[in-house]
């Protein structure tokens, strides 16, 4: 009963937010501008190239390994549970989000932007969604690897469930970590500071369970840390187990972080 109520409330809030975003078509105008500025900046192409390169490494090593003999793991595991993936994971988020608000605050364009008939919500959502879209585009080339594999080895172990799980967790991690990046970027004028805040928290969240193995903490806390630790979630999803607890966890935290960012942006409007 209360579950239904929560879902209804969530859907209503989401609908209201989207209506606010699309009002007078301003949200999409901002979104397109943000997305364009991603693809017009050299940073985006460098990131895209590096992610493709790292995926290539994963793929090659997977093929070498799989050829060596019987393996129980799938290609998805090789791709998303590997050192190249982690490397990409750690630099993607700071690099694509550090610019979002910090640059506007540095240049002062935040003033021209927010004195136009545009709401803070529209600005926030357009930047967030543009970054998320760019992030998803980054992973499109990796699908080619799987496609190639499928074509060449029709009866292979490229299990479809494993792929679905992989891309679901990729999306969830994006939604969550880009929200961290938005908040970090809104907090400062300095892009480097924003990048460092974002990097630290993404890393911490990814490895929290792993790091705590070397630190004396109570057992209960260790369990909790393992529970929220991203690298374990990735493993579950890549194995093809889509766990709704994690879906709720990442989406609700993304919303919480975005709400915080919204209030950070609105802070100047607080009355003294």
């Amino acid at each position, binding site marked *: 009963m209360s579950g239904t109520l929560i879902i209804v409330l969530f859907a209503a809030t989401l609908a209201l937010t989207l209506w606010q975003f699309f009002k007078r*078509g*301003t949200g999409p*105008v901002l979104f397109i501008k943000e997305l364009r500025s991603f693809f017009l900046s050299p940073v985006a192409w460098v990131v895209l190239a590096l992610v493709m390169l790292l995926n290539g490494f994963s793929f090659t090593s997977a093929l070498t390994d799989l050829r060596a003999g019987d393996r129980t793991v799938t290609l998805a595991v090789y791709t998303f549970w590997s050192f190249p993936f982690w490397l990409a994971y750690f630099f993607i988020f700071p690099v694509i989000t550090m610019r979002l608000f910090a640059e506007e605050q540095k240049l002062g*364009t*935040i003033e*021209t932007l927010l*004195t*136009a008939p545009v709401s803070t919500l529209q600005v926030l959502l357009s930047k967030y969604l543009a970054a998320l879209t760019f992030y998803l585009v980054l992973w499109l080339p990796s699908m080619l690897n799987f496609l190639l594999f499928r074509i060449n080895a029709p009866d292979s172990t490229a299990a479809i469930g494993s792929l679905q799980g992989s891309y679901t967790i990729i999306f969830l991690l994006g939604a969550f970590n880009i929200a961290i990046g938005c908040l970090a970027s809104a907090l400062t004028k300095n892009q480097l500071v924003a990048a460092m805040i974002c990097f630290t928290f993404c890393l911490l969240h990814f490895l929290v369970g792993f790091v705590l193995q070397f630190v004396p903490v109570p057992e209960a806390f260790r369990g909790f840390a393992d529970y929220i630790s991203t690298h374990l979630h990735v493993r579950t999803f890549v194995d093809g187990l889509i766990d709704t607890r994690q879906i709720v966890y990442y989406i609700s935290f993304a919303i919480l972080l975005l709400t915080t960012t919204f209030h950070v942006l609105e802070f100047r409007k607080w*009355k*003294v």
Partner: protein
Amino acid sequence: MIQVSNLTKRYVGRTAVDQISFEVGQGEVVGFLGPNGAGKTTTIRILTGYLPASSGTASIAGFDVFRDSMEARRRIGYMPENVPLYEDMRVKEYLRFRAQLKGLRGRDVRKNVGEAMDLCGLTEMRSKMIGSLSKGYRQRVGLADALLHKPELLILDEPTNGLDPNQIRRVRELIKQLGLTHTILVSTHILSEVEMTCDRVIILDRGKVRACDTPANLVGRMRTARTISLELQAEAPLAIDKIKTLPGVKKVVKESIDENGWTRLTVRAESGRDVRESIALIAADNAWPLRELHAHKATLEDVFVEITQSEHSS
């Protein structure tokens, strides 16, 4: 068009704007003057909805800037100080984006962007990257942006800041031209500009409105003593003594003497008294050749200095 009453903005430990009230009528061009830190930009930011007021109200065309912020903003063309722009966009691209943000769609975007670029002389720069433009052109892009949606009210914060004299003249001409069809609130340091373009002046100092009148009235109301320059051929100490005895003269200062004995003096007289005639008579009585006698007119600059400095010293 603009109504401000008892507007106050406090930052932590400092009151930037203190209980100010003023009005700007439809079609007026109003100059917003004041020394740095007087609260001009803060007031403008409140009017444009960027900052909230601590207390008091402000409305644009009847819309409260805080409660009906969107409606108020739709009616304002705002050019902030130092004209922040996206460096990595082209002029045309940027103006199109801004036009769409301001609610224009389809054919209107193309039309208004074209008109604004024409008006601000940007047409040949349309495909340039904003980052590569000179300061003068950046300023014009900012102005074109403010004009895009044909707002009823233009708020320009130091539009001539950092421009060269030719560019300042161009911007001034443009403001004059726009003043025929728009209500304009322009904040500036350049007083000659205000004298030439504005119907009315609001002088702000340390968060308070110190004066609000037409430039001519302000100059007319000047309380400072009149200053007279004269040049005559006489022995300086004697001339100074004689002129000092005249009724209404407050002070006589020797400026210079050249090799032919021409002495330059500056005389400060009480306000409302013209001592030029009596000086001329004294010169005639003593047979001093007199080749210059000039009363300086008070300028808006004098008014500005008097208002903003007498308060500081008192």
